[in-house]
């Protein structure tokens, strides 16, 4: 083990030269390869845009890829904590990997900000989850927007199709609960793999239940396949998707078959169309402009915004923690945790965060809007 040198992927490499002891180290675990790569890559691209100094202290970001695998995620988290002595963990991209990292964060008393959706990551609150925060809206918040829209449009029966993984599963769980409350019946419940080359069987099953609407719970371009198949088979009714599809690749793949698709998204997707009065507009727009300047127009997605908001939260909380202790110490980590928990009305790209001891997400209804795909682009529903 003579190579115990920590040569690291640092974005703040320029600061390495002046590395004072007071440098704040942020360990980022994300899924830049493997099945969740389409979520992890925008997150990785976003990390390089995060603030280089916070409260006057330089910040160093150390990014590790977990290949969408929970074992590697935990291994990486341990490495960041033990070798790099990071002050805070950010990650991971998927819910299972984030859940798996909770034990590492709690054991080493390191605050952690997850970029995954499942509500189970921060609730119910317990001794371990005290250390965990997350930036993406819970599936429940997004699902409630869909349910509201369905109720308003007299949708009584829904056929559900979701990914055969944690994403589809989480959505089904939340959606089912809310639908029951709203008197909406789920008449078909199907699964498909993101890599499937054909979903004809599922599509026929969805249609044979003669639903008022179809709800597809998938992320990125794979979610286009069921919708294209449904349209090809002559399904004319409304189709709902999740915010996971809100990137331009989805529009490109789905084309005219996705006209009229309804979905809830975070403000980031619609930043330019939001009215000036919207409290999230400015902060969302700030991210969109920065990201698109670095990666090209139309490349922004919700997932990158989750990484961005982790940075926003840190920027809000770390100065307070710095008053209490020096970075690199257990006291600083504890102070940072406390500071994160007391964040109030902080505007990120995804919404307004107001944390409390019981709520480590802190987002409310301002974190989502319903939109429609019209003329091949996203447009706000009135």
């Amino acid at each position, binding site marked *: *083990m003579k*190579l*115990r*040198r*920590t*040569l*690291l*992927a640092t*974005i703040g490499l320029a600061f390495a030269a002046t590395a004072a002891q007071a440098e704040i180290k942020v360990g980022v675990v994300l899924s*830049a*390869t493997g099945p969740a790569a389409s979520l992890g890559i925008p997150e*990785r691209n976003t990390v*390089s845009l995060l603030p280089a100094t916070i409260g006057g202290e330089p910040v160093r970001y150390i*990014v*590790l*890829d977990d*290949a*969408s*695998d*929970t*074992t590697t995620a*935990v*291994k990486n988290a*341990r*490495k960041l*904590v*033990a*070798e790099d002595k990071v002050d805070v963990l950010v990650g991971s991209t998927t*819910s*299972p990997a984030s*859940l*798996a990292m*909770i*034990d590492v964060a709690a*054991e080493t008393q390191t605050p952690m900000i997850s970029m995954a959706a*499942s509500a*189970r990551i921060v609730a119910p609150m317990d001794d371990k989850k005290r250390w965990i925060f997350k930036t993406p809206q819970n599936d429940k918040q997004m699902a409630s927007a869909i349910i509201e829209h369905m109720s308003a449009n007299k949708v009584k029966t829904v056929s559900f199709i979701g990914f*055969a*993984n*944690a994403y*589809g*599963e*989480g959505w089904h769980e939340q959606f089912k609960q809310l639908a029951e409350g709203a008197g909406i019946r789920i008449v078909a419940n199907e*699964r498909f793999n993101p890599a499937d080359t054909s979903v004809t069987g599922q599509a026929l099953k969805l249609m044979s239940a003669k639903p008022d609407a179809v709800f597809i719970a998938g992320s990125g371009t794979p979610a286009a396949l069921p919708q294209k198949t449904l349209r090809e088979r002559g399904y004319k009714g409304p189709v709902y998707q999740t915010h996971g599809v809100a990137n331009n690749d989805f529009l490109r793949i789905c084309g005219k078959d996705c006209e009229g698709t309804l979905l809830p998204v975070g403000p980031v997707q619609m930043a330019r169309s939001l009215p000036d009065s919207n409290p999230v507009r400015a902060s969302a727009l700030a991210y969109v402009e920065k990201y698109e300047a670095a990666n090209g127009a139309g490349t922004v997605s919700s997932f990158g915004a989750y990484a961005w908001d982790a940075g926003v939260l840190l920027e809000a909380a770390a100065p307070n923690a710095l008053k209490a202790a020096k970075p690199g110490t257990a006291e600083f980590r504890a102070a940072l945790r406390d500071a994160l928990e007391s964040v109030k009305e902080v505007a990120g790209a995804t919404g307004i965060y107001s944390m409390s001891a019981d709520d480590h997400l802190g987002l409310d209804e301002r974190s989502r809007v319903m939109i429609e795909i019209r003329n091949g682009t996203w447009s706000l529903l009135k």
Partner: protein
Amino acid sequence: MSADRLLLGGFLAVLLVLPAVLSPYYITLLNYIGLYAMVALGLVLLTGVGGLTSFGQAAFVGLGAYTTAALTTAAELPGWLAWVGASPWLTLVAGLLITATVALVLGSLTLKLSGHFLPLGTIAWGISLYFLFGTMESLGGHTGITGIPPIELFGWTLDEGGEIYYLIWAFLLVAMLTTHNLLDSREGRAIRALKGGRVMAEAMGVDTSRARMIIFIIAALHACAAGWLYAHMQRFVNPTPFGVHIGIEYLFMAVLGGAGYVWGAIVGAGVITVLKQWLQDWLPQLLGASGNFEMIVFGILMVLVLHRAREGLWPILKKLVPVPAVRKKIDDAAAPLPRRTLPAAGEPILVAKNVTRKFGGLVANNDMSLEVRAGEILALIGPNGAGKSTMFNQISGVDTPTSGEVLFLGKPVAGHDSREIARMGMSRSFQHVKLLPTMSVLENVAIGAHLRSGKGVLSSAWRLDRAEEARILKEAAWQIERVGLKDFMYEEAGSLALGQQRILEIARALCADPCLLLLDEPAAGLRLKEKQALGELLRKLRSEGMATLIVEHDMDFVMGLVDRVVVMEFGQKIAEGLPDEIQKNPAVLEAYLGGVE
């Protein structure tokens, strides 16, 4: 103390102090290496030694992990199950039982698959189990199960990397020790014979189906134990670590480390785990953080390694540290193995009556009859294509006659498999030598004594078989001495000349203590001196009352040695009698020389 003991002691000492020296993260890595090595060790046994390729080991890891995760976190277990969830140690037992049962079922379904069907079969149930873990809501679905408690041992709670480290490596070392012991035993030789060819092993009385099942279950149990440790170390389980991709990675580790070697498992697991870490550290420095190059570089590195080291890394490492091979000691004081009483001289031992064997329209044997008596050597000769080998197969029970019958000691051979026939006292050599080239001559011969001993897998693993093992080795050494291969006893069988390999087969056959010896062209490839020595040996056996049937081409060798000769041509017997008579028989001369001018 011998050099290898010293090295081993040093290794253990290093393992013991590592947690005090290394940073916590490297202990974490060592924990993972230990877990991976345990699964890879099962694959060493299954794939490297037994020749059965499995992609499905990750699913067994999953069974171990999910059993304990589900039982220790369940809020309410049904009454009859509640006691199991009380302690991880009980769930380990439960997991092992479940895994053994599942492995037994899967094994009985897929181990019958031959050749390349087997790996695909393992992929099939590997994928199926993976998706089942994800689809069953009671197992947390794709999202997984959190809050698995740590293991407690004598009041210690193993909730930190440095603590569970000792447990993981203790498990691994015990697994390595028992595997090592097992391979160096009667059952182990039977397992190692699987890869060399099942026909030979069966002829020596090894139940190869059982041996395959045994290594399959052992490998599954290793994986299950690793899964149990994984669940309590990670304290979270979800399906992704148990998919086919990870199953392939375990195979990768075993092959890279050296699939045929117990230590190859650690080497493979260690190299791959550490390499991945280093790539993760180094590549972004070299190539920038914009893309992920780890997989690409990793894949290509693996190919390059395999180009240079087909046997894996362990044999190369071994050469760097030259430790003289420890020779097995032959204990002269060991009690001899029991011997069967040979039938009285002149008693008929093997009787073939009107044997006919047809392959479609081709009649390979037509109405063949012959008899071998105790204390005589009978030669079956004939030109190429006369049907001698087919007749040999009918007699040895490898094939069944279309009509007619073969009686061995008064019982029909047909309907019995090679093992039973071997048990009855018939032992054979092969026309195309079948031995295990990388095993020593001594061990090759010892396989012959399989049926004369009975210690099983557990006694082998825990070295309760040493008294019997000493008896087997003594017997094997004696047979080797008898056939004149004493100087080569510790050589690899594959390094012998072809003639010597044939002699080795005879020693192996003798090690089974037969009353009938079937030799298929034993003199082919032998030099004159060796032929004379072989003749001497066969005469000596004859004087002890052994019955011998030789199929042979070499006339000079046959005529000076045997008591009677049966001559075949075109599937039929054309002559039978004393060597002198046969040499003058016009039909025989016609067959061999194309007629007398």
